[in-house]
């Protein structure tokens, strides 16, 4: 075989390996969705969304779980956007770029994003539940998940700001803008797409988290709706876990149905992120 033939064979071989790996990942994901749909799809109706969990599998629903998920997500989103975006703005625009302290903070943010989520649960149990006596409440859950996804939002917001051309920042300064005015009138509106994408991806990570919430003591069986942010709660993944751990097969059908709802919510969040990205790409062309 000549050298160029060898290279072509190798090229073909690598292409094949890549395609097979991709197919494997996709097939597993598709069969999971299909399996959930076949087993749980029939269980989903209006009653499933409007009923509390019950000892009888046929009457059990996910009312407290989806309301809990929704409220926890709202609190998480509020806290994450507020703290995450501000932190990113500070790091990117106000801090001294080459200061060792800045470098240290940057390094630690990257480390934090790789930390196992259960450790955030332990941290929250110690600080929010025991020290601040917030209990296993919606607020504690929001704070915990917010801590968990903050690094994602900080990193993606900084990336979004950094991808803006610096000569436009200069133009803004040359027109007499302060740092804040430059952020407010030019940088934030232009980076909004990237920032929102990061926030939504962070939320879609938070929505499926179970471990830290179980650690802070979230209940698995709740037959009422929370009245304030200090009330106990449950969320979809915990309800799912609860049903799955029962011996009766009927509850496993409920678990599959709840899994389908959770999956749909996550995919919907991702879809929104993609739509925002497309919209922003269309409206801003450099």
């Amino acid at each position, binding site marked *: 075989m000549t050298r160029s033939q060898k290279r072509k064979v190798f090229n073909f071989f690598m292409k094949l390996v890549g395609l097979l790996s991709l197919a494997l990942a996709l097939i597993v994901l598709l069969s999971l969705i299909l399996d959930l749909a076949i087993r749980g799809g029939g269980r989903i109706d209006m009653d499933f969304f409007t009923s509390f969990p019950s000892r009888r599998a046929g009457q059990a629903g996910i009312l407290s779980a989806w309301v809990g998920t929704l409220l926890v997500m709202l609190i998480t989103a509020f806290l994450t956007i507020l703290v995450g975006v501000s932190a990113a703005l500070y790091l990117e625009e106000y801090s001294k770029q080459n200061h060792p302290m800045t470098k240290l903070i940057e390094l630690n943010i990257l480390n934090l994003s790789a930390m196992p989520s259960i450790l955030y649960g332990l941290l929250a149990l110690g600080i929010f539940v025991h020290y601040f006596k917030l209990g296993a409440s919606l607020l504690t859950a929001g704070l915990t998940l917010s801590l968990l996804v903050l690094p994602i939002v900080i990193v993606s917001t900084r990336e979004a700001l950094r991808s803006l051309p610096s000569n*436009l920042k200069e133009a*803004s*300064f040359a027109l*007499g803008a*302060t740092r804040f005015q430059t952020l407010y*009138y030019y940088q934030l509106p232009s980076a909004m797409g990237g920032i929102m994408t990061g926030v939504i991806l962070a939320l879609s990570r938070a929505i499926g988290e179970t471990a830290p919430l179980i650690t802070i003591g979230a209940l698995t069986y709740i037959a009422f709706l929370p009245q304030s942010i200090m009330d106990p709660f449950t969320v979809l993944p915990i309800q799912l876990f609860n049903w799955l751990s029962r011996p009766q097969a009927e509850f496993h059908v409920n678990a599959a149905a709840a899994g389908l709802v959770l999956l749909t919510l996550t995919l919907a969040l991702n879809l929104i992120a993609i739509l925002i990205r497309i919209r922003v790409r269309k409206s801003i062309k450099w």
Partner: protein
Amino acid sequence: MVENSTKLQIKNLNFFYNTQQVLKNINLDISEKKVTALMGPSGCGKTTLLRCVNLMHELVEEAEALGEIVLQPQNINLLGLDVDPLWVRERVGMVFQKPNPFPKSLFENVAYGLRLRGMKNQTELSDRVEMALNQAGLWGEVSDRLQKSALALSGGQQQRLCIARALAVQPEILLLDEPTSALDPISTAHIEEQLSEIKKTVTVIMVTHNLHQAARCSDDTVFMLAGEMIEKGKSQKLFTNPQDKRTENYITGRFG
């Protein structure tokens, strides 16, 4: 003919970037409502000198400017420690080498500086935007699409938009940093024509490494070399009868 009054006095200006000296003892008077061209080969410090005038160098941590840049008739040293950079940039506008409109509508681009200064009245904003676009010679081409994205304009139109954006806040001095070096000859001619209109109300300082441009559209020309000011004079005189040997070598094309 009556001699024009001085708008800007640069006195003993030295500029350092880290330990490297970029400008060496520059002394220069800029005449009011004239076009002054700063000319010289790449790296001679002409852009640095220009950026000092609206304190853009303060955005770079390692840069330091020593000396005085006095704005008249206020008689204020722009490099003074008690001078607010925002105050300076309100009076000294700047247009950069590469057109850099914001990813906003034409109207919002020109209105940007006005909004920064808190102007909210819509009719007032519209009037000022139209005035600025007229001054920059762009109004006729874009008056029917002010709400369209500025990025849909051609490069030459974008640069005139940037000029309009700088003029909208009615500065006393307009700095142009090689405003046509990224443009085609027709767009360049457009902007050069507009300069005679602009200088009726504003003092213009323009950096160029294009000899012909300096000769064509400036009243005064300053020749710089390796951080030093070599010669300054009326453009007509400097190009026909240079006093310094180095100026002569440069304009006759012996180096550059």
